[in-house]
């Protein structure tokens, strides 16, 4: 797959159809993959990588890259295409200046799950017929592929590319996922249990802003958390609830726009299940206003910024909130 992608990228660069390529390259370690922009065939040959760790959603980079001179080629997994559609809908990217090649999605691997098995000094990870062969400084280790899958891939919602200009590999379908199971569990807790759960989780936050920075829905010209006039900007927590509020405010800001790409939880160094906040919103929107998938298209109106005569009454929403 990686070879096919590099070959196609080189062709498009060579015939001048695109000026830049957004993909992934290796970082410090083999499993430490980072998004990257490539401008030449040489760079592609040297650094371009596509493997079980290229899980990063690169669509957000298009906010800047699509506004530069010349077309940009981007490789998008199915889940990433939802993000691009949402950005197109919000006029945050110039879709005409983007050439999308749809590539197969995951499941991708979570290095933390491998490390959690006590495996250290990892040099490379190979998938040999759904058994991971892990080459370490201390010899080869093995573990089942299925036990190292990223959470966001384990509850994959779709293998379908909702926007692309060409495909490498085959397109899939929207899946029946169990992604709301945990949300339901939380809903069934008492208010106190739920509060305790979130206090425990959110209090781990070190306010590194990784979730915000990676989130494709967080592309504001000036983020409220960086704006001294917003009243919520803060460099140092003034009380123990500050970071909790940060996540709650962020969840509200992306409500109805979040495509559930799962990047927030993937990048969180504290392993806070941030995606659950967003999924609660998605689940509620689905049940109150009918099924809606942000980014499934570029024209429909999102339920939270739309009004129809059939919208449920506020009293119904209120009753649901009663404990």
């Amino acid at each position, binding site marked *: 797959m990686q070879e096919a992608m590099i070959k196609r990228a080189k062709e498009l660069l060579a015939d001048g159809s695109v000026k830049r390529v957004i993909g992934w390259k290796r970082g410090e370690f083999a499993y430490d993959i980072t998004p990257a922009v490539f401008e030449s065939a040489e760079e592609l040959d040297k650094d371009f990588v596509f493997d079980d760790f290229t899980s990063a959603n690169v669509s957000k980079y298009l906010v800047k890259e699509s506004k530069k001179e010349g077309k940009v080629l981007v490789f998008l997994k199915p889940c990433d295409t939802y993000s691009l559609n949402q950005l197109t809908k919000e006029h945050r990217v110039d879709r005409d200046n983007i050439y999308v090649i749809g590539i197969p999605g995951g499941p991708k691997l979570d290095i933390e799950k491998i490390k959690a098995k006590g495996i250290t000094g990892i040099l490379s990870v190979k998938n040999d017929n759904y058994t991971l062969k892990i080459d370490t400084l201390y010899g080869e280790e093995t573990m089942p592929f299925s036990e190292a899958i990223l959470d966001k891939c384990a509850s994959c919602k779709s293998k379908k590319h909702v926007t692309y200009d060409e495909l490498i590999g085959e397109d899939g379908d929207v899946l029946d996922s169990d992604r709301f199971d945990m949300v339901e569990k939380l809903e069934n807790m008492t208010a106190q249990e739920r509060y305790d759960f979130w206090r425990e989780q959110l209090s781990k936050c070190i306010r590194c802003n990784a979730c915000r920075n990676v989130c494709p829905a967080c592309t504001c010209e000036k983020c409220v958390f960086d704006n001294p006039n917003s009243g919520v900007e803060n460099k140092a927590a003034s009380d123990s609830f500050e970071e909790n509020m940060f996540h709650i405010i962020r969840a509200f800001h992306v409500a109805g726009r979040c495509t559930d790409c799962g990047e927030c939880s993937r990048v969180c160094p504290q392993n806070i299940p941030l995606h659950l906040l967003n999924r609660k919103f998605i689940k509620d929107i689905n049940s109150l206003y009918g099924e809606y998938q942000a980014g499934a298209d570029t024209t429909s109106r999102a339920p939270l910024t739309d*009004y129809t005569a059939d919208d449920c009454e506020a009293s119904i929403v209120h009753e649901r909130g009663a404990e």
Partner: protein
Amino acid sequence: MQRIGVFVCHCGTNIAATVDVKAVAEALGHEPGVVISQDYQYMCSESGQNLVKDAIKEHDLGGVVICSCSPRMHENTFRKAAASAGLNPYLVEIANIREQCSWIHKDIATATEKAIILGKAAIAKVHLNTPLTSMESPVVKRALVIGGGIAGIQTALDIAEAGFDVDIVEKQPTIGGKMAQIDKTFPTLDCAACILTPKMVEASQNEHITIHSFSEVEDVKGFVGNFTVKIRKKARYVDETKCTGCGLCTEKCPMKKVPNEFNMGLDNRSAVYIPFAQAVPKVATIDPNYCMMLKNGKCGVCSKVCSVGAIDYKQQDRIIEEKYGAIVVATGFNPIKLDKYDEFAYNQCPDVVTSLELERLMNAAGPNGGTLLRPSDKTHPHTIVFVQCVGSRCDDSKGKPYCSKICCMYTAKHAMLIREKYPDTEVYVFYIDVRTPGKNFDEFYRRAVEQYNVHYIKGMVGKVTPKSDGKIGVQASDLLSNEQLHIDADMVVLAVAIEPDKTARPLATMLTTQMDTNDFFTEAHPKLRPVESATAGIFLSGACQGPKDIPETVAQGSAAAAKAIGLLCKNSITCNPCTAHSNELMCNGCSSCEKVCPYGAITYIDKEFRMPDRTTAIRRVASVNPAVCQGCGACTVACPSGAMDLSGFSNSQIMAEVDAICK
């Protein structure tokens, strides 16, 4: 820091009885920026206003906080007072310590504490207030009346009389509404058609009135003085401009088995029809549910016989767009459905009818040519039982909690007319109360009892059972003599509750007007502004606002017209300066605000910006048209980055108020 004056009103004892106003003035006097804090018995009085004016001049105030009644009452009074003292009126804030404090609390200590907090919030806000200047917006000198019953016709005639253009939108093929179906009117017993049809003709002939019959309001945008309305002109498959109303098509149409809704389904009409002889406009309409040509392309008789070629089977719904300065709602009422009232056997027995059906049965243009016959066997009924309050004054979910108001009078009318015309008929009326307030109303009812010997029995009918011999068994209780009655009736007439038309609720949504729990439109003030809705420029006429008889409906129709004329007379109206604006440096151009704007005030422009790294970039940013913006603030909460803000109610002002309350 602003120099702020605080003025605490006693409102006689309205506030002072529950709030220690002196303590409030004292406490607020210590707030930062407050240079003077006083209390006074009636702040809205001339001397109270002078107190404010003098303080503005004497203390060089930059902001004023009035702790008094709701801003809906006197905000304007104090803004004007401030303006006359040279202070921008938008530097005045009202702390509502009456409706939101003294009236809802009993304990003085609690109420006083709350009043102080509300005052503090207003002070916190006024610190951030900026002077605002109003703009003017032109008024479109044309009115829209929604509904062409007697209410709508009266309103339109009165507006036209004042010289303004007015459009009537009526969803039926003809105007006239319910009154056209009524036989005689109380308390004078003159024929409804005789007094209604001249008004219908007048409306059609008036050069200022345009009637859009068989049409519905599809969409309403804009605001007082400047509404843009989309009207769906439903396809009637007949060219209105060509049809002469000769009626030949209706005679020749082979499809004659269509229930005639004008006669309440008691007889049939043809698939192409004119609702009744005096219909306005007198134009045929083809019913696509029954027309064989439209259903399966076989027939075409009407097209062949029409000498002017008015039939057009290919006609489509048409949407027209018009601008209006004022809108009058006159959507009227309907009798409720009787599905939940099996005890009255309405669905089982054709001789159990509603009062409106009886009107048609007794009408000369009705199914029996004016002779009262039983629908089942076309024989004369000799015993008729009237049941009052069917679905009215109900405390269960089956009916309506309110009194439908008109039933007592029309039942007296029916009873009297029947006894007059058919003296051999026994008439029983079962009632809970007989309610006859109104000029000459009680005299009318007493005539029915005393002169016409109608049997009025206080009590409710428990059960109506059709019998095999054609009689209808009526089981009822007489509450005064405390006995059970069994009457073998030939007909039973149900005085069915009335409810607002089903189109009213979606219309209220389009107009952003309020309704009560029964779907009647809510007036701006139940006593002092009975024909205005709370939404500026939207007026209420007739039974859409509550049950009404014809005299009341006409009076309200004229009153609504007077209010609309008052608006249309103005060349321009002062706009609210509290409008939204976008901080372009922060705007993402994401279109969230535009999607939630109910007034279409937001557009987007591509604008060149200097970026931090000495480059320039073209960015899509929101731009608000202040003449269209009504300051609802929906955009400010939809905006993810906080770029949208509202003058007079800025995000920072709201947060300052919240902070002041939570401190």
